[in-house]
């Protein structure tokens, strides 16, 4: 047991203090994202930090549901901290915004809370920045979401990043006709998830499926790369109408991505299985050099809003802001200085006060020196603060090398 005096100086596992440059860099990235989302005509929503557990847990993945922080309100109702902004937004749209002109374009920058082991900069409290495009189910809508994801990653200054794009509707079209029980389909999905061809082969053999169906599933892990894999996929799934229709939508999406100038940042992987319970169409993850985990994920989730009473198609993504910040740092993109440009001696001189005010109005960072000191002391102070210039109360100034 920690003594209480020791406890009060500690932080619980999974939270952190952010200060100085680190806090400023985070705010800067968030401001940049806010700007980009605005340029694409998205409007900000700020969901509450906590609400009823039932609302938040309803459609959360089993994994996220396990990780939700929950606690009783004073009247005994179960409350929970938001673990994912998409669910509160789905509730908001279904209850308050459903009769607005569609599609709705919404963005958020919100801290979320999950009781999990911190992994690659995502702690138990971390920040997600993302968008939801609600009320439109076309490949064009998918393309807008992906193009905005790429634009956002570029805008924050990441180099060498890539989106991995898969399609849950293709996987579902291949699996559904087989009418597998959950215990049967689970090992198939898990082998696909790990691209474990040997295990997939074994599992499919044990299920003794029709040969055509087995072969189609075995092809899935191989269908990764650029848009040329679509032709191979169409041949491989030729006898499955629904899969072909999904492939056709994906092909249309790729054409729009080309037109939007983001194709070079996107590659296809039809073997993606992640989030199958939640996503109904495209699904994607973003990766960048230096971070071994996804820094962003998203996709189409056409069933979520129906849960709150409005049957609207939706597509969106969320970015892990802390992971992006770590990646930027690893890639050497962390130039941000909080040193004042000018240190000025605060005295009873109104002319200096006016000059300082004018400099601040021009966006300069000016710091008052608050005690009367000798010229030498002031120079030493300004140097220690990293300033380039000192303005003395007597109206003189000095540049620092």
């Amino acid at each position, binding site marked *: 047991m920690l003594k209480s005096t020791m406890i009060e100086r500690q932080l619980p596992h999974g939270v952190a203090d952010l200060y100085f440059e680190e806090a400023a860099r985070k705010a800067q990235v968030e401001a940049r994202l806010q700007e980009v989302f605005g340029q694409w005509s998205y409007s900000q929503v700020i969901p509450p930090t906590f609400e009823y557990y039932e609302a938040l847990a309803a459609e959360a993945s089993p994994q996220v549901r396990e990780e939700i922080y929950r606690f009783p309100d004073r009247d005994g109702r179960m409350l929970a901290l938001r673990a994912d902004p998409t669910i509160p937004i789905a509730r908001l749209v279904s209850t308050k915004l459903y009769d607005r002109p569609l599609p709705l374009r919404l963005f958020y920058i919100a801290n979320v809370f999950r009781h999990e082991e911190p992994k*690659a900069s995502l702690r138990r409290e971390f920040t997600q920045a993302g968008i939801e495009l609600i009320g439109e189910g076309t490949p064009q809508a998918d393309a807008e979401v992906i193009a905005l994801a790429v634009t956002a990653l570029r805008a924050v200054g990441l180099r*060498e*990043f*890539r*989106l*991995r794009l898969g399609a849950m509707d293709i996987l579902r079209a291949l699996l559904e006709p087989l009418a597998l029980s959950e215990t049967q389909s689970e090992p198939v999905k898990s082998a696909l998830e*790990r*691209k*474990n*061809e*040997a*295990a997939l082969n074994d599992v499919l053999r044990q299920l003794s499926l029709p040969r055509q169906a087995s072969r189609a599933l075995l092809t899935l*892990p191989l269908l*990764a*790369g650029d848009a040329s894999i679509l032709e191979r996929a169409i041949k491989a799934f030729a006898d499955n109408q629904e899969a072909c229709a999904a492939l056709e939508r994906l092909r249309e999406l790729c054409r729009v991505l080309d037109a939007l100038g983001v194709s070079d940042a996107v*590659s296809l*992987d039809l073997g993606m299985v992640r989030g199958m319970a939640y996503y109904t169409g495209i699904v994607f*993850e973003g*990766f*960048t*050099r*230096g*971070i*071994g*985990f*996804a820094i962003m994920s998203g996709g189409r989730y056409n069933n979520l809003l129906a849960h709150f009473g409005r049957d609207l198609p939706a597509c969106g993504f969320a970015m892990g802001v802390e992971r992006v910040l770590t990646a930027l740092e690893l890639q050497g993109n962390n130039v941000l200085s909080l040193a004042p440009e000018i240190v000025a001696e605060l005295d009873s001189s109104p002319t200096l006060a006016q000059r300082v005010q004018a400099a601040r109005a021009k966006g300069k960072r000016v710091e008052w020196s608050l005690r009367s000191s000798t010229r030498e002391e002031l120079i030493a102070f300004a140097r220690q603060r990293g300033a380039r210039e000192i303005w003395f109360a007597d109206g003189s100034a000095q540049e620092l090398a």
Partner: protein
Amino acid sequence: MNPLTIALPKGRLLSPALDLLESLGCDVHALRGASRRLIFDDAAHGTRLLLLKPFDVVTFVEHGAADLGIVGQDVLLETDSDVFEPLTLPFGFCRIVLAARRERAQTDWRRAASLRIASKYPRITRRFFVERGWSAEIIPLHGSVEIAPALGLSDLLVDIVDTGRTLKENGLIELETICTSQAALIVNRASHALKFQEIQSLLLSLREQMEK
């Protein structure tokens, strides 16, 4: 061409893993010696090889500190890691078994109120017992698991078996095979997206090499 970082496990899988890489033309000469270095760069082939403890191979690959790794499936099963596993490799064959002291081979262990199991594989052991609905107290060890029952530390043990000689020499007998294992190539998920071409061509040459 982006260089690829490959994590290799010290121990019984190292030599066959080096043979395989050598057959692809990698210069692995320095790794066979008694050098204490842990990082080996082969600029000519654009590879960097890391020498790690088997469990750390998985950690390095999962976090992207290595793009690829070679490791036993036993370690993968134990770590529950989020990596791709596109290729099984034709070496490192073994089994993970439940074993008991020979003189207690006839005991009906299901009737024991509390079983103590010593193992280097606590998660595999727990999963095995949970699936059967048996309760067990797991005693995690880092090695020399074979002597735990004889010294009264545990009733049973779960360990890796190659030929079975170690079990025999320690007066133990196999009760059940929990799973089989062999070497596997694992790939970091981000690397798979960011260095797709390089990894695909490595996978292709590995497949070709193994078919020979």
